[in-house]
């Protein structure tokens, strides 16, 4: 367990976000260390709850802390958070690890071939590269269960489309700039999509509606159409097919 030594000058800082939330910013960059600190503070608030704090939202580089001003004022909460920041350490708990099966290309992975052309590699090479990396869920945001992943190989970094598409499937596997995604609900998007997973990141009818959370580790495993279909069928029967690595 390493004590926190921030490498970012002027951070961390605590800023007002209206009259019912504070934001603790750890940097203005996307990096793993920053995100670990964000999640460490969220975990600390979960294990040592402060009365009046309603919920927290971990993002790439900051933690939003929502509070009820009737119970606790922002000023008081801010000094409690300052104290916690002084005690914060990272590397406490081991991350959960999951392998996500992906059917690359086909209907949902509409951009696979174009992306392979852009990168001057074969589609097999692109798939192998995408599936070779170790990803981290930096945050769940935008929509229910939508997972923003870091760890995309540099060669696969690709700018977003100038004009977003109107409807992208839930479970689409995406690339947006330096980030990767696993989509969770259908909707418009300007990202590029290279495949789909049979896994459902969000299903309100399940006892555990959300599959992933910030801090999880993700690897992708290419599967063929047959395996994807049998996974689809198993999931629609309500079977648990998620491949979690034993801790």
């Amino acid at each position: 367990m390493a004590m926190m030594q921030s490498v970012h000058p002027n951070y961390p800082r605590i800023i007002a976000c209206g009259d019912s939330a504070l934001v603790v910013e750890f940097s203005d960059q996307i990096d793993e260390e920053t995100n670990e600190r964000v999640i460490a503070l969220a975990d600390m608030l979960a294990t040592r709850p402060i009365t009046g704090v309603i919920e927290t939202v971990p993002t790439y580089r900051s933690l939003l802390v929502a509070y009820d001003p009737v119970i606790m004022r922002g000023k008081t909460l801010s000094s409690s958070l300052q104290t916690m920041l002084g005690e914060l350490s990272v590397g406490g708990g081991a991350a959960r690890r999951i392998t996500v099966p992906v059917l690359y290309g086909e209907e949902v992975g509409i951009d696979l071939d174009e992306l392979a052309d852009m990168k001057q590699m074969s589609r097999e090479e692109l798939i192998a590269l995408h599936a070779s990396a170790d990803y981290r869920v930096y945050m769940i945001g935008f929509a229910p269960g939508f997972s923003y992943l870091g760890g995309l190989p540099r060669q696969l970094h690709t700018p977003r489309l100038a004009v977003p598409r109107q409807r992208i499937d839930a479970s689409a596997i995406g690339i947006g700039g330096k980030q990767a995604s696993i989509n969770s609900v259908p909707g418009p998007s300007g990202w590029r999509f290279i495949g789909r997973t049979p896994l459902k990141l969000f299903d309100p009818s399940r006892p555990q509606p959300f599959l992933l959370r910030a801090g999880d580790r993700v690897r992708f495993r290419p599967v063929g159409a047959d395996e994807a279909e049998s996974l689809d069928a198993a999931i629609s029967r309500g079977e648990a097919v998620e491949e979690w690595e034993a801790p």
Partner: protein
Amino acid sequence: MTMLHIKQAGPMLTVQDLGRTGLMHLGVSGAGAMDPTSMLIANRLVGNADSDAALEFAHVGGAFVAEKPVRFAVTGGAIDITVDGQLRHGWESHWLMPGEVLKIGALRRAVWGYLAISGGIDTPKVLEARSTHLRSGLGGIDGRRLAIGDALPLGETKKSSLLALRKPFSRSNGPVRVVPGPQADHFDAAAWKNFLREPFSVTPSRDRMAQVLDGPAIRAFAGHDIVSDGTVAGSIQVPSSGRPIVLMAERQTTGGYPKIATVASVDLPRLAQTATGSTIRFKSISQEEAEDLLIARYNALANILASLEEKPGDAAKVEDRQT
């Protein structure tokens, strides 16, 4: 199960309650009423719990028929209400007998209206609330707007008198108060001057997710992309168009535009209720002042709710008809 039948529906008719909490870290914003105070008053007028679900509509209500005698109240703004053609007042409760048609017309000088029915709308809870979240397809009926032919289950009616507000409900005028930040330092003095001194118009680009404003372009000197971070209801995002977007009940939980300021919680429902085409101005206040205003508002609301008075007349007679 007793049902409420929808015979006509305005363009934005949804089931709403207090919304969801504790799920923002999983990408789910609260949803819930755009004007929670008006919904709360409607629920109290019909003897419901504050957590019961009601119907929310934008601009136009619709026509409704209940299968059993129910009490109803319509709040939000000035509006025409009839039961079988007979006028009824807003901001008080009335009986609606089986077969009678309740018609709710167009709101005047307000945007969001509420219809509370005694017993509450009893659609199943999804992620612990009945609120419809349109963007995510959650709650209400299949997470969608309600339409002609829909039937909504009603909860058990608790016994209560017909009630009315003692004084007409009014909203304050004046500037929309904001707390600077979290990205206040992405905007220079000229941008802040534009933001706080110039008027902004309420554009038709508005829904349960966000409200776009039009006025002098607000420029973020280092660009309009930030590393995405968390949002709250009232966050004022400024994209590269320079036109501020105020995030509302059904917003995305994270966003990548700098947020110049956050609307004070007391003034957000007032902004939601401001008619399209109207002009607003912003005023900067501290977080502490905004908290004080919110606490004062809760106290004022508690006084209003404590002073609901029984309506004189034939309430008891209708109660006999019910049994």
